[in-house]
């Protein structure tokens, strides 16, 4: 090693000091970014306070409650049929699916069982509302990535499904069709044939989106390996539905605990994906729409004849007791814990909705991601604000 002069040494120290100064000047200060409460990417009015270091998220804090409508308190002053009207509006995209677990819980307390035809029609409408719900996600996810076209396709094909629900139940969005002991009406004439035609369209929509998005390079780069949730973390946060299945946990209420619905009589498959990233969540939901369309066709073919209402008194008084029923709603596990004191109104209804648990992972998941990925991850988690805040 050659000896260096004093001058060289001083220059070296000065350059090091200059380097330090530059580093200090370029050091990023923490910034707080407020997303929401009204933001297109939050599917409603979720507010997320994100603390940034440069473009890196160091902490994310969701602030729910902007859509809190006090459901659990309102159910205490509504009779059972009135509660049924109200709870349609929890997850507004798959309204019929909200009614089913509550009605099943009330039926369990009253010791009534719906006739087979009613159970089949219930399952049929349940799956139709799943299609109506998830198709919008399939289009909306692309919007969050900057592709506007798929959402037009989603709205177009969703209208066909909504038309079916409307012609059967009279309600486009909130059917309020389920009754304790059965359903309100039988299916209209010609409905079955029309449903089968629409399912062809739904399948074509899935193929279209698969061709448009899944092979798209931008879509792949922005979703693969982004927002990875390992299965044990997903389970510990109480996630459910497609978010859990995308983490590789093979768990589905429809297959594992088929209460009151006829999923055990159908031929279908629970799809899982081992990756647990945003892409996996999209892929699993896409397959679920296909499975739902498959199930709807099977349900149309196997619809048994018979009555649609069991014998139920005109004024519904539910005997004393407690019941918990959960079903696999489009967003995940949704359950009602109904406590009755033998009166016209429930004493207490605890609503376990899927989205609230699904977004509880947000502070963990968003730590350490970049700002643009925040939007992708939130979109891929797929929550609905009514389902979070209730």
């Amino acid at each position, binding site marked *: 090693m050659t000896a260096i002069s004093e001058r060289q040494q001083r220059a070296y120290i000065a350059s090091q000091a200059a380097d330090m100064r530059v580093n200090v000047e370029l050091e990023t200060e923490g910034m707080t970014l407020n997303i929401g*409460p*009204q933001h297109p990417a939050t599917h*409603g*009015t979720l507010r997320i306070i994100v603390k940034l270091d440069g473009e890196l998220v160091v902490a994310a804090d969701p602030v729910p*409650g*902007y*859509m*809190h*409508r*006090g459901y659990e*308190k*309102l159910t205490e*002053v509504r009779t059972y049929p009135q509660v049924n*009207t*109200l709870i349609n*509006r929890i997850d*507004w*995209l798959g309204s019929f699916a909200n009614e089913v677990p509550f009605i099943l819980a009330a039926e369990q307390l009253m010791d009534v069982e719906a006739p087979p035809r009613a159970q089949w029609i219930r399952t049929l409408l349940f799956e139709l509302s799943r299609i109506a719900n998830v198709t*919008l996600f399939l289009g909306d996810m692309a919007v969050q990535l900057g592709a506007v076209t798929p*959402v*037009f396709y989603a*709205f*177009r094909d*969703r*209208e066909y499904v909504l038309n079916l629900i409307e012609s059967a139940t009279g309600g*486009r*969005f*909130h059917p309020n069709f389920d009754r304790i002991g059965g359903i309100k009406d039988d299916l209209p004439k010609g409905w079955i044939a029309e449903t089968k035609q629409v399912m062809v369209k739904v399948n074509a929509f899935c193929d279209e989106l698969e061709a448009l998005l899944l092979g798209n390079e931008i879509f792949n780069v922005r979703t693969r390996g982004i927002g990875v949730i390992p299965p044990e973390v997903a389970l510990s946060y109480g996630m459910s539905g497609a978010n859990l299945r995308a983490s590789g946990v093979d768990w589905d209420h429809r297959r594992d605990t088929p209460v009151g619905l006829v999923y055990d009589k159908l031929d279908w498959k629970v799809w899982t994906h081992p990756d647990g990233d945003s892409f996996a969540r999209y892929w699993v939901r896409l397959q679920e729409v296909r499975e739902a369309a498959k199930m709807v066709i099977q349900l149309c073919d196997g619809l048994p004849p018979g009555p649609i209402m069991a014998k139920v008194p005109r004024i519904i008084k539910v005997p004393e007791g407690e019941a918990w029923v959960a079903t696999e709603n489009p967003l995940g596990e949704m359950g009602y814990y109904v406590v009755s004191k033998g009166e016209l109104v429930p004493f207490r209804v605890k609503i376990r909705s899927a989205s609230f648990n699904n977004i509880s992972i947000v502070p963990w998941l968003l730590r350490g991601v970049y700002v643009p990925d925040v939007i992708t991850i939130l979109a891929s988690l797929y929550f609905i*604000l*009514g389902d979070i805040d209730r």
Partner: protein
Amino acid sequence: MGLVESGKLPKPLTKLLNISRKYSMWVYQWGLACCAIEMGAAFGSPRYDVMRLGVIPFPASPRQADLVVVSGTVTDKMAPVIRRLYEQMPEPKYVISMGSCANCGGPYWDSYSVTKGVDQIIPVDVYVPGCPPRPEALLEGIVLLQEMVANEDMAAKWKGDPLVVD
């Protein structure tokens, strides 16, 4: 627009201005609950296609908007935010209240956390009833608002109401 402020706007000019205002409504989508999806269907879906009415649903901020559609349940936690949004909009501004919740509280009329009608915090021009209203109903509401705008006397609207810029 000195003519408008002084109230000396000639009738034909008013009519011309009104026609152009009526067919270039920039609408800010204030989607809150279920109605937001029906609003999305009305604005974003090829079946209903709101743009043929001269309504443009793409402003990035309320500061660029003429019309706001408040669609969905307004909760007490949300109310100050809506008030702030309305104050950010430039005059002349219009509000459509969409759905029963925004009109009067709707099915949550006895809830402890819901504001019973958005007209308690901001003035509303057109109410669209329904829970949720069909997209056609929202389009009807927009057509009604356009009729209102077409017959508006801008001078009378702004008389005695000085423009304050702070």
